[in-house]
């Protein structure tokens, strides 16, 4: 098939267009949701500002420094939530038969599900997150080098891939156990909250597990250190700040494997 790849891309683009037309079919409701959706992300940032109303330092970091951490986390989480977040609705896709419907079409099941249920009303959240990130970076007084300029773009992209992987990997648990939503939320929303602060505010096994066991420290904390030119109070070398893209690739590979195993399980057990 000569037009194989191009044809597939056109097909996905058509699915995206259909989703856009479907969602904007209810104009008022779409507009209201668009505005309402900014709320959640705004609260994450407000929380940080309120905290700094009572303290001048958080885990050894100033307000401006912490804003780089929370900005990176908010921007990346909102974008990943927009692109991949609805995959947590797998139990619904199974119940309504959408999963069976996409499985009898000549396209990948995961991209079809993501595109056919893309929550476009969350676009406003991602845009707001991006604005927070830009503001934080501009006001942090970063000593710009070509490397840091690259990292300012790469770090949010890696974090989007990382959060997206967490969404997909935790969602596949519902292929085995339908009532797994709370478990998934503890890792996705829990991960967002965890990455909103420098990891130095956490302690003990909790920090070891979330920051390094699950890799959340590489999402916002270490890239922020590299951008700010600060040494890690916990003693990890400076290059760790550049590990985010590598960690994201590993996370994506693990999530893809989890998805394939989950789909295979669905096909062998049925709904």
């Amino acid at each position, binding site marked *: *098939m000569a037009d194989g790849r191009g044809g597939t891309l056109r097909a996905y683009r*058509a699915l995206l267009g259909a989703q856009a037309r479907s*969602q904007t079919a209810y104009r008022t409701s779409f507009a209201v949701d668009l505005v309402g959706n900014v709320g959640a992300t705004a609260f994450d940032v407000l929380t940080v500002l309120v905290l700094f109303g009572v303290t001048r330092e958080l885990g050894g970091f100033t307000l401006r420094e912490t804003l780089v951490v929370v900005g990176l986390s908010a921007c990346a989480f909102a974008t990943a939530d927009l692109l991949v977040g609805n995959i947590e609705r797998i139990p619904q896709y199974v119940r*309504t038969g959408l999963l*069976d*419907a996409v499985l*009898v*079409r000549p396209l*990948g099941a995961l991209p079809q599900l993501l595109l056919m249920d893309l929550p476009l009303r969350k676009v406003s959240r991602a845009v707001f997150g991006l604005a927070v990130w830009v503001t934080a970076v501009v006001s942090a007084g970063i000593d710009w080098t070509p490397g840091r300029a690259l990292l300012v773009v790469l770090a949010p992209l890696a974090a989007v891939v990382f959060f997206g992987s967490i969404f997909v990997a935790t969602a596949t648990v519902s292929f085995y156990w339908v009532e797994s939503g709370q478990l998934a939320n503890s890792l996705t929303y829990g991960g967002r909250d965890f990455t909103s602060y420098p990891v130095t505010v956490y302690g003990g096994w909790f920090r070891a597990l979330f920051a390094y066991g699950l890799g959340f420290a590489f999402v916002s904390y270490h890239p922020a250190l590299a951008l700010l030119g600060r040494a890690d109070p916990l003693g990890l070398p400076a290059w760790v700040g550049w590990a985010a893209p590598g960690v994201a690739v590993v996370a994506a590979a693990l999530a893809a494997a989890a998805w394939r195993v989950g789909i*295979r399980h669905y096909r062998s057990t049925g709904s």
Partner: protein
Amino acid sequence: MTEVIRARGLRKEFTVHVKTGRIRRARRVRAAVDGLDLRVERGEMLGYIGPNGAGKSTTLKMFTGVLTPTAGEVRVCGLRPVAQRTRLALRIGVVFGQRSQLWWDLPLRDSFDLLGHVYRVPAAEHAARLRRCRDLLDLDGFLDVPVRQLSLGQRMRGELTAALLHGPEVLFLDEPTISLDVVSRQAVRGFLAELGSTGDTTLVLTTHDLADIERLCRRLVVADLDAPLPEPPVLPGAPLREVAADGRRLVYALESAGVAEVVSGLAGVASLRDVAVVEPDIEEVVARLYGAPAPAAVPAP
């Protein structure tokens, strides 16, 4: 004649958890499809009937690559359904009666355009097939109506069109007439009869409605949990209607063949025990097959 579907010893087991005490639960393995052997040739129409839970939908899902068989082999259009899912998808059409392939909030016409992209159908072919369906299924009155506002009958006509736009070699239909009113039911049946009569498209359908079968199909397969289905003797002019009781009961319909021909045809079967000729309507025969084993009705070797 080319073989479109071949199944050998096809089996699908599900694990169910049964409550045995206050907390304790036991795992039971239940076979939804137990050793199905089947051969369908190009252009055939195959009706698949059976009570709820007999594994009809499960069988269709194994044919279309949605479910992996527990055991046995299946080839559709020469492909392995699960392993070669996307290649197979281009050559088959699927209608799940209680599920939709259409975009709920968009006009019906948009779903057809979208499926054209999804299946990469050349524009001219797409237009020609759509024109044919519009004529035969009378779609023009509601092409621009959002799918969510269509009646069930209109939606089913849309689903049929959606499944045919890429020119599939085999069309699988899971209960296509379920909960339709009489008029829509007739329209769907008439369309499928017309489609099948050209001999290009192989039709495999499951149904509860025996009138669907009588109108459409020359051949019946009864799905019965404890009864594997061997290929019974073929008698010219007397199509096989039912196989039951572990393949120990065969039901043929007398069409062009006479009683004497059928009986002499069966006389060659070594294990022939009893032959009876009755005139039940199909509904009665099938109801009896689902229920407790009744005395042998029609030719029973």
